[in-house]
């Protein structure tokens, strides 16, 4: 029984071990469940081996030999197999051992039994015959049942043996025989089983078969997965030569790849990168992933995600790389698209917010500016009404206090007007409304004009100089009004902040590049255009300064409510100079198509108080002055420089400043101008000769006339003026004195208005109709100051006395204006003045003037001393209105009705200003202007004669050279146009007119025009 059980056990064990050892099952299980990763890695290699196309057996062997991984994988497989086989062998051996043990035991038992049997035979002797029968069995027995059972049998036998020994033995023998037979049978079965096992073992012995089966499965599996995957798998050796590759893309055959490097296979973008990447992995020994975009001829543009891992030898050296690439072109494209979209959205959003902000700001700004402009305009209109009413009021009879009040009112009004104009200018520039005009102008003329204007209102002992370099073109194209505005602004600023020394303008051509490096940082003092208001604001300063040098200098501006207006009268001795200067030789300019750009740099320098460094940054800001103290001391709105800067920048230039405190400042602006070169050439000789003419008048010291240097001394009279000018004045003086002397008793003055002497004479005549409002105001003031007048008696002789005493012609000026010495005399005249009606018939004045013109000498003086104005206008009503206004402004005018008459008038007399209607019958204003300009340039009236105007007064017949000179100076001609459209203005400028005023003419327009052109 024990034996059977053992057998059973053995059998069971066999089955178990065998079942667990079935390679198929084991492999299957391992593959699918247990450790797929490891097996996959293994399978890759295996798969490659199996791939018929691209297998490299040699390499595989090498790999298995040298590659650690390959060999370990293979070793594992073999070990596994060996283990399984060893196990089977062991089990079989155990079985065999058991069997042989049993055999031994049974043999031992047999021996025992035999011995027992012999012993029994010995003990019973010859009695036992049947034993012989048994002997037959005997032979068989030893081999058969004498196994383990013997023990049991023997025991049984022992028990039964007591019954009947013979029978017992027989039975026993038979039993043993049976046992033996069974044992033999079992042995046979076992042998069979062993054989069977061996057979089975033999069947399983080949590892190759098993492995190849595994591999086949893996191959199928991999193939199934990979057949459509966009994956490239490869192995490359140390030199990055392909050793094998799985490549689903049919464009390359294996033989084209194996043994080559990437660079040898492909060309194009990304190849180098991938090569470098692999090399990097090779060197570092660490696996890495990277996205690489290829741009090859073979594939076109494709992006691969490349995974490269190093392969190590058993010694730990890298012997190559495994490489896997997956095409992700579409994904990358999508991703990039998404990124782009996101980016775009973000940008869009940012832009949107920015735009919204900008729009908001712009809207706000525009609204604010618009409001400012509207407000300024709304304020200006009624304000100008107030100011002009006040002006008119000042012409009426007022007492001293009223006059004082009115004076303040007017100056304040002027200041506000100035401020509002500035604001309007600024907002115009800023809102881009300001339109620049492109007109031809002469830089020298502009400089001279600006300096003259400044000199007129000069309150201090300053020298004004202008220097225009030779290379500055005679004529350039630009917005002359704006440029003049800038220059005037800068000059008046310079004058305002300069107490002594000089102020000047320098003009020279720079290259466009060098202008960039202009002057360093910018700065200047607070900006303020309004010199006049400034003068009013700072009486103390003016007083002390002017007193120091020439007592008659600064007072007018102080005392008179209208600084500028008065100044134009007061400045008599300079008149000739100024007139001369303003009459720059004008000629017709023919537009030329070829234009070049020239950059002209303009320095406005002074020796004034300078600008502290800390004020420089805010200098050009609006409403900024150097300090509150500056504003108090010098006045001003703080807008002037801001406007200058904006204007300069609007014209494409830039404005800079350099300054040293207490040493002076220099403002520099560089602007581009267009030049028509032909114009220059043709103009040059004329221009120079022309300039020669009046520059000689202006500044005899200047040898190089063409260099365009102008010097205006302080507003000195007589001796202080440059020698030749004063000489000229002195030349005139005798006439003047003589005239005064001879006519004073008659009460005839060649010109009651605007000439200082006028007051004397006109007072004498008790004709005050034509005097400027300021004058009367002044006189009234002085009258009130000293009501008891002792000098009533002989005014004429008083004047004569003055003339004699000083021997210089500025004396009447003193008398008439504000010199305290003469005040009492003024008073006496004033008394008379107030007695008589202000109104004096224009006719009367005409008579007087015609009387005056009867004498040549007088006429010269007259033209010197008071502006002669010619109005050319065909419309009667317009004539009446304009005439009346001029009368009110203190000027008398000659009137002609068309261009032809205008030319004749200019032929017969010289004028300081012509107001010319554009549209007239017979000959229009433009034509007449051209003719007059032609005369000024050539000195003859040929053009006019050609146009059918006969020469009435031969100019060479003029007995006086000076007259000839004067008449040949450029007369300012102001157009009066019905519409102010810019083309019309262009036309005016193109025909040689200096400016234009739009119709209907108003008080204000006339006044401004006179201030600018009649000095």
């Amino acid at each position: 029984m024990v034996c059977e059980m053992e057998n059973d056990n053995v059998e069971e064990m066999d089955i178990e071990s065998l079942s667990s050892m079935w390679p198929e099952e084991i492999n299957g299980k391992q593959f699918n469940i247990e450790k797929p990763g490891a097996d996959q890695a293994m399978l890759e290699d295996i798969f490659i081996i199996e791939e018929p196309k691209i297998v490299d057996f040699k390499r595989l062997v090498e790999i298995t030999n040298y590659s650690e991984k390959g060999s370990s994988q293979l070793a594992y497989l073999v070990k596994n197999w060996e283990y399984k086989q060893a196990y089977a062998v062991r089990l079989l051996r155990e079985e065999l051992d058991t069997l042989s043990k049993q055999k031994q035991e049974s043999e031992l038992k047999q021996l025992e039994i035999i011995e027992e049997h012999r012993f029994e035979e010995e003990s019973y002797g010859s009695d036992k015959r049947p034993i012989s029968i048994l002997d037959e069995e005997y032979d068989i027995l030893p081999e058969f049942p004498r196994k383990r059972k013997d023990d049991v049998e023997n025991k049984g036998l022992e028990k039964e043996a007591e019954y009947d020994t013979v029978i017992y033995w027989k039975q026993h023998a038979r039993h043993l025989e049976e046992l033996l037979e069974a044992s033999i049978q079992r042995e046979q079965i076992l042998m069979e089983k062993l054989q069977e096992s061996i057979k089975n073992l033999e069947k399983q012995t080949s590892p190759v078969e098993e492995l190849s089966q595994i591999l086949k499965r893996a191959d199928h599996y991999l193939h199934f997965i990979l057949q459509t995957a966009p994956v490239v798998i490869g192995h490359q050796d140390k030199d990055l030569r392909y050793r094998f590759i799985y490549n689903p893309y049919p464009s390359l055959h294996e033989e084209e790849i194996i043994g080559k490097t990437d660079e040898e296979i492909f060309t194009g973008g990304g190849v180098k990168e991938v090569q470098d990447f692999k090399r990097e992995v090779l060197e570092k020994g660490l696996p890495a992933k990277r996205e690489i975009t290829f741009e090859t001829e073979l594939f076109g543009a494709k992006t691969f995600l490349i995974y490269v891992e190093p392969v190590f030898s058993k010694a730990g050296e890298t012997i190559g790389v495994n490489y896997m690439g997956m095409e992700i072109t579409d994904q990358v494209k999508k991703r990039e698209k998404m990124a782009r979209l996101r980016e775009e959205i973000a940008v869009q959003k940012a832009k949107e917010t920015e735009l919204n902000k900008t729009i908001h700001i712009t809207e706000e700004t525009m609204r604010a500016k618009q409001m400012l402009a509207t407000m300024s305009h709304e304020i200006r209109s009624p304000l100008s009404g107030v100011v002009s009413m006040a002006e008119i009021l000042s012409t009426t009879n007022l007492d001293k206090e009223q006059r004082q009040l009115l004076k303040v009112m007017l100056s304040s009004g002027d200041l506000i007007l100035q401020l509002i104009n500035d604001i309007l200018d600024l907002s115009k520039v800023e809102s881009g409304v300001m339109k620049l005009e492109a007109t031809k102008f002469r830089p020298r003329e502009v400089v001279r004009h600006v300096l003259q204007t400044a000199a007129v209102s000069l309150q201090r002992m300053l020298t004004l100089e202008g220097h225009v370099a030779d290379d500055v073109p005679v004529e350039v194209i630009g917005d002359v009004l704006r440029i003049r505005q800038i220059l005037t602004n800068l000059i008046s600023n310079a004058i305002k902040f300069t107490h002594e020394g000089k102020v000047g303008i320098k003009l020279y051509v720079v290259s466009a590049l060098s202008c960039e490096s202009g002057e360093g940082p910018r700065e200047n003092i607070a900006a303020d255009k309004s010199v006049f208001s400034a003068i009013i604001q700072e009486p103390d300063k003016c007083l002390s300064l002017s007193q120091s040098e020439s007592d008659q200098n600064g007072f007018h501006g102080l005392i008179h409510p209208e600084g500028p207006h008065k100044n134009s009268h007061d400045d008599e001795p300079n008149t000739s100079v100024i007139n001369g200067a303003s009459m720059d030789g004008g000629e017709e300019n023919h537009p030329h198509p070829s234009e070049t750009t020239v950059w002209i740099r303009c320095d406005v320098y002074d020796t004034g108080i300078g600008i502290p460094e800390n004020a420089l940054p805010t200098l050009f800001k609006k409403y900024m002055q150097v300090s509150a103290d500056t504003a108090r001391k010098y006045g001003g709105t703080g807008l002037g420089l801001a406007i200058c800067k904006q204007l300069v920048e609007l014209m494409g230039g830039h404005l800079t400043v350099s300054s040293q405190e207490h040493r002076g400042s220099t403002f520099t602006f560089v602007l581009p101008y267009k030049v028509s070169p032909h114009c220059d050439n043709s103009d040059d000789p004329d221009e120079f000769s022309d300039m020669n003419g009046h520059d000689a008048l202006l500044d005899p010291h200047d040898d190089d006339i063409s260099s365009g240097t102008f010097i205006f001394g302080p507003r000195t009279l007589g001796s202080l003026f440059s020698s030749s000018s004063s000489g000229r004045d002195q030349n005139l003086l005798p006439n003047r004195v003589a005239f005064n002397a001879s006519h004073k008793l008659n009460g005839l003055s060649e010109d009651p208005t605007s000439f200082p002497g006028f007051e004397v004479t006109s007072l004498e005549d008790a004709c005050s109709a034509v005097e400027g409002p300021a004058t009367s105001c002044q006189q009234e003031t002085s009258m009130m100051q000293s009501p008891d007048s002792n000098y009533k008696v002989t005014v004429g002789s008083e004047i004569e006395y003055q003339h004699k005493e000083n021997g210089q012609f500025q004396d009447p000026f003193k008398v008439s204006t504000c010199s305290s010495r003469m005040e009492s005399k003024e008073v006496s005249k004033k008394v008379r003045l107030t007695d008589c009606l202000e109104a004096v018939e224009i006719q009367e004045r005409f008579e007087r003037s015609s009387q005056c013109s009867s004498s040549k000498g007088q006429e010269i003086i007259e033209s010197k001393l008071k502006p002669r104005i010619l109005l050319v206008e065909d419309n009667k009503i317009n004539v009446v209105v304009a005439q009346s206004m001029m009368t009110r402004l203190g000027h008398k005018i000659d009137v002609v009705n068309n261009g032809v008459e205008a030319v004749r008038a200019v032929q017969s007399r010289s004028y300081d200003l012509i107001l010319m209607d554009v549209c007239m019958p017979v000959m229009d204003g433009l034509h007449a202007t051209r003719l007059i300009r032609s005369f000024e340039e050539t000195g003859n009236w040929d053009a006019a004669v050609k146009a059918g105007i006969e020469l009435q007064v031969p100019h060479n017949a003029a007995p006086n050279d000076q007259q000839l000179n004067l008449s040949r100076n450029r007369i300012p001609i102001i157009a009066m146009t019905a519409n102010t459209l810019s083309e019309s203005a262009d036309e005016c400028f193109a025909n040689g007119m200096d400016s234009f005023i739009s119709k209907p003419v108003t008080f204000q327009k006339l006044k401004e025009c006179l201030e600018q052109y009649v000095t």
Partner: protein
Amino acid sequence: MDGVAQLKKRLADYTTSLYDEGYLDDQFVQLQQLQDESNPEFVVEVVSLFFQDSQRLLSELAKALEQQSVDFRKVDAYVHQLKGSSSSIGAQRVQRACISFRNYCDDQNIEGCLKCLQQLKNEYSLMKNKLETLFKLEQQLLEAGG
């Protein structure tokens, strides 16, 4: 004094209405500014001159437009004259009528010109009436001692 004050108010109201209705513009103020003791009748004189001149120009215009072949340059010159003088005295509406007249003139549009002439005549007589009334009021005020 009540009468004077009333007259004053009437004059002021009337003047304001002239400005408000666009018959006159600021130029008329300029004109009035030019009138003073030395020239107390200045405005009236100028305006009378304007009336005379305008009357003449209007009849010239009518004559010119009746011609077989209209000389537009001549017409334009007349209108220009009228425009100039009306703008000088501040007769705004007359001036405006002149502007549209000149536009038709530029186009050589006889129909338009004739229409404009009619309009111009209307504006002129309106203006004349208004100004005469104004002067009458001023006269009354003066006589009343204002």
